Structure formats: structure tokens, C-alpha cells
């Protein structure tokens, strides 16, 4: 019984630490994105709240929390209120299976630095990423607005299409690691990261993961110059904040997954594991911001053509090649 209670306490502490770290990083990722994007566009970015605008995320949070929470009159009330939670909760839950270090020993107990090591962790990531579609589609539908509906439909179509190359690109990784567990996948990259042997899978994964997180150049669901704000046009206050939070947490999860699947996870010289993972997440996020500052939005037919005519066949060929090489 005592062991059970200490186990629960350790789990709760880990949950709190990871949650706080995720939310704080999400807040400062927003700051970093605005600042870096501004410099890419020869602007200054936020610099009023605090030194270098470092208090900007806090100011934004206060603003979002104190704003009126509007529900459109003809909206489907319950679904409208719940949809933002689906987006942010699924994004947060995906982090539950990401390992961020080796086991450490605390008060004579071995504590694995992961919230939940299950043997189907990779499938869990996909399950939650496919649940995230509901938040977008239902949020867009329940707003009872044409912009939001078109955004939601685009979002649903884009996300279910890109889930396919996302999953197929990871099959070679699973084949090499011989496990669905992210801990095993990181351990399999003990000698070399998988990006060296699977550059094609890496490219496919990054492209489709960016499409999955609806960022530029794949931001058709929220294309602001044609759809207002897309699926979250009608949202205000903290419910909009939850969509926003979901996007930035998704960015971090994406960075963590790229790190775990291709860059060796928390492995690296000199620095401790969690710090290495953090560095890799931030590096991936900064590259995504750079991409946002560089590339224009795709046309809808280009979006679908890239997914079905380029990424899916390339991923399938990659699987066959990997299997062939592994058999020899």
C-alpha cells in the first residue's frame, strides 16, 4: 500500500513538472515566435512588456483570461464549449509517452524519467493526434459560421490525409527499433541517430507533422486572408487561448517526436538527458518558425497532391527499401 502511494506521489510530481514545463515553454515559444518572425521580417517584435518583451506571454495570458467568453447565439453550445479543450488536451496527453532521460534514483527508488512507458506508445501518439481532428472539425462546425465551417472541413480533410504519411514514415523507425515503445526507440539510437539512416523518413515525417499541426505553409484551415481565422473565428477569450495553447504544445510535441524518432531523443554528450531533449525541441521549433517566415501557403490542390502523390508513395517505397536492406 505504501509503495502504491509513493508511486502515485512520484507520478503526480512528474505530471506537475512536465505540465508546468510544457505550459511555460508554450508561453515563451509564442514570445520566441513573435520575436524571431519579426526579425525575419526586419521588425522588432514585442518589446514593450518588460525587457525584450519578456513579460509579453504573461500580459497575453491576463488579456485572454479577462476577456469576455462569447458564445454565438446560434452555435451548438455544448460542442462549441468543449471543442477547444479537445485540441489542447490531446496535444498535452501526447507528451505522456515521451521519455526525457534515463532512470534516476531518488531516495533509493528508481524513477524512470517518463510519465508512462507503454508498449504501444507510438500508436498512442497517433490515437491522440487523430482525436485532435475532432476539436478542429467540431469547433468549426459548432460555431455556425461559414468561415469556421470551411476552416473545420479543411482542417479535418488535411489532418486525416496527412496522418497517413505521418504513420507510414515511422514504420521504418519501428522496423529498426523493433518496438512501438518510445523508450526502446531512443535506446535503439544508442550508437547513431536514425536521421543518418532514414533521411527520407525524417523529411516525410517533418513535412506531414507540420501539416498535422496546421502551421504555415499548411495553415489552410485558418487561412486568415480568406477565412477570417478559420475554425476558431468565433472563439474569444480563453477558449481561443486553448486553441492557441494547443497549437504551441503541439509544436513542442512535434519537436519531441522528431527528437525521439530521428535525433536520438534525450541522448547526447555532456548535457543531462532532459536538457538535451529540451535543446532538440527548441531547435525543431525554431526551424519551424524559420519555415513560417519563409514559405508561402500552399494551394489546396497542391496540399492534397503533395500528400497523396508524393509523400505516401515515397513513404511506401522507403518501407520496402528499409525492409529489403534489413533482410540482406
Amino acid at each position, binding site marked *: 500500500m505504501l509503495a502504491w502511494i509513493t508511486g502515485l506521489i512520484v507520478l503526480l510530481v512528474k505530471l506537475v513538472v512536465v505540465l508546468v514545463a510544457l505550459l511555460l515553454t508554450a508561453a515563451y515559444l509564442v514570445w520566441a515566435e513573435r520575436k524571431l518572425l*519579426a526579425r*525575419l521580417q526586419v*521588425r522588432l517584435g514585442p518589446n514593450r512588456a518588460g525587457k525584450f518583451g519578456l513579460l509579453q506571454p504573461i500580459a497575453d495570458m491576463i488579456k485572454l483570461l479577462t476577456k469576455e467568453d462569447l458564445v454565438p447565439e446560434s452555435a451548438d453550445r455544448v460542442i462549441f464549449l468543449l471543442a477547444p479543450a479537445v485540441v489542447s488536451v490531446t496535444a498535452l496527453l501526447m507528451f505522456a509517452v515521451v521519455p526525457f532521460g534515463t532512470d534516476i534514483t531518488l531516495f533509493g527508488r528508481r524513477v524512470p524519467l517518463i510519465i508512462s512507458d507503454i508498449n504501444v506508445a507510438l500508436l498512442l501518439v497517433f490515437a491522440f493526434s487523430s482525436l485532435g481532428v475532432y476539436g478542429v472539425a467540431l469547433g468549426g462546425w459548432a460555431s455556425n459560421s461559414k468561415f469556421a465551417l470551411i476552416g473545420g472541413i479543411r482542417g479535418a480533410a488535411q489532418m486525416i490525409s496527412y496522418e497517413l504519411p505521418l504513420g507510414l514514415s515511422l514504420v521504418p523507425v519501428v522496423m529498426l527499433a523493433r518496438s512501438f515503445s518510445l523508450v526502446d526507440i531512443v535506446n535503439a539510437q544508442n550508437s547513431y541517430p536514425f536521421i543518418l539512416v532514414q533521411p527520407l523518413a525524417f523529411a516525410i515525417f517533418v513535412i506531414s507533422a507540420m501539416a498535422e499541426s496546421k502551421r504555415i505553409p499548411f495553415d489552410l484551415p485558418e487561412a486568415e486572408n480568406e477565412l477570417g481565422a478559420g475554425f476558431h473565428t468565433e472563439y474569444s477569450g480563453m477558449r481561443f487561448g486553448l486553441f492557441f495553447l494547443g497549437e504551441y504544445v503541439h509544436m513542442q510535441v512535434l519537436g519531441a517526436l522528431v527528437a525521439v524518432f530521428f535525433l536520438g531523443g534525450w541522448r547526447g554528450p555532456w548535457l543531462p538527458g532532459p536538457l538535451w531533449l529540451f535543446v532538440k525541441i527548441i531547435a525543431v521549433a525554431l526551424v519551424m518558425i*524559420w519555415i513560417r517566415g*519563409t*514559405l508561402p501557403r500552399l494551394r489546396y490542390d497542391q496540399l492534397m497532391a503533395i500528400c497523396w502523390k508524393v509523400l505516401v508513395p515515397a513513404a511506401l517505397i522507403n518501407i520496402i527499401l528499409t525492409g529489403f536492406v534489413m533482410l540482406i
Partner: protein
Amino acid sequence: MSSDRTKKTKPADHPGTLIAESIKALGSGFATTAKHLLRRPVTEQYPEQKRVLPERSRARIVLTRDPDGRERCVACYLCSAVCPVSCISMQSTGGEGGRRVAAWFRINFSRCIYCGLCEEACPTSAIQLTPDFENCRQDILEMVFEKDDLLVDHGGRDDRYCFYRHAGIATDTAGKGEHVNEQPPVDAKSNLP
């Protein structure tokens, strides 16, 4: 649809060159933005750094004065008539020395769109737009400017122009025949054939 698209763009000679070209294009794009990262931001920090606006930029409306310091406005209602949002209103009345003046003159700046048509319509260069754009108020009623708020102590752009020196009416500024480029009035009695 797809057929005429392929007609316009020249056919790719080789998939290898196509991939190489697209990678080159992507690379040059990323290099451009990376170079921008090192440039000095062009942002002007507004409340601290105020740039001098061009003289003819259109913002707050003023009523200017003659070189001799008297009101130029003759209350002709032309600005009020031309105003597309009907934000100018006034009441004409007779002033001292045979002049016409506005008894009251009112511009509702909460409606004004700063189009500058009033300035173009004004025959006396009285109503003019200035580059001073910082006039927002907490209370919308404070945006209604009366004649006292609008009048300034200078002549604005045409600061040497005085309407009553050119107009053919006798006032205390210039009597009959004393206006610029005006011949003295013909004596009807000496003009007999």
C-alpha cells in the same frame, strides 16, 4: 484544366533536375530570410521616435486666419456641402466691417474621414488639414470641435492670402476699387456716350 497548366510551364526535362531546381529554390528562399535576420529592424518606436510627417498629410482640421489676424472663414457652407460624411456644420452671420463670418462652426471629428474635400472646396483657404493626427479622446463628445477649438493663430499654407483683398466686395479691408488687380469703379455719370 490540368492539360493547359502543363502547356504553359515547360515540361521538366528530367525528374533529377526538377528536384535539384526545387531544392535550389527552397535554399535561396531560406537564405534570403536568414540574411534578413542579420539586418537592422526598420521599426520606428512610435511614442518615443516620432517621424516628421509630410506637410500635406491629412489629419486634424483647423480654421486659419488672414495675414492681419482675422478669421478667414466666410461661412459659405461649401465645405459643409461637400463633406461626404456631413461632419461640418455652421451658421452664417454678418460680422464687423461688412464681412461674413460663422456664428458658430462645428466639426464632428468622430465622423470625419480626413478626405480633404473641405479643404479643396474652401474659396478662402480658411479650412485646412494639418499633419497632427494624435487627437483621440476618451469621451466621444469631446471629439466635437467648436470654432474656438478649430481656430489657429496663423495662416497655414497660403499664409499671405487674404480673401477680402481679392473679392469684389467693399469691406473694412478694401473698399471699392482698392482690391488687388481691380480698376477703380467706373463713374456712371462720366461714362455717357
